[in-house]
């Protein structure tokens, strides 16, 4: 009984986090939800009697992917801001010239 409850809850949580990571508009929120998804995935591997894969998932999901994606988000944010500034600047220049 509790086994079924645990597995059902886990499946629901995985689907919910996966869907919200895909559908989120805010990139940062998507990344955080993806980290949470990875950690829940580790618990799912545990339930599937695969502790070694759970170990790898916990290490990669929490450590590597988290840091890499956060780094990427901050770079994207900076890029986007400078790009915005540049397009605005070029617009202004263009309007000045015309």
């Amino acid at each position, binding site marked *: 009984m*509790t*086994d079924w*409850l*645990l597995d059902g*809850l*886990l499946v629901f*949580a995985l689907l*919910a*986090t996966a869907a*919200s990571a895909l559908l989120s508009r805010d990139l*940062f*929120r998507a990344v*955080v*939800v993806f*980290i*949470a998804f990875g*950690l829940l995935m*580790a*618990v799912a591997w*545990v*339930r599937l*009697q695969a*502790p*070694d894969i*759970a*170990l790898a998932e*916990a*290490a990669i999901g*929490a*450590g590597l992917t*988290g*840091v890499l994606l*956060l*780094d990427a*988000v*901050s770079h994207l*944010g900076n890029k986007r801001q400078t790009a915005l500034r540049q397009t605005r600047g070029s617009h202004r220049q263009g309007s000045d010239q015309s």
Partner: protein
Amino acid sequence: MTLMFNAVAVFLLLTLLVALVRIWRGPTSSDRMLASQLFGTTGVALLLVLAEAQVAPALRDVALVLALLSVLAIVGFVTRVIQIDRRAS
């Protein structure tokens, strides 16, 4: 006793899920990063209880890795996204 451990695991997963709603709604990015700390405590407790329930000693290693590496994501957040060092100077 296994039933008890399983029930505790279900309860911990439930609190984790409810807390994820806060992470989803959290107005600032710091609120969102609390997710990592949350998994560092609740996730560790969940894995340790499951290790006892499923008689799988390897799960304790998973819990240890989770506790160690949950800080890593937060350090990444603090240094890359917020950039405390650059603003402090």
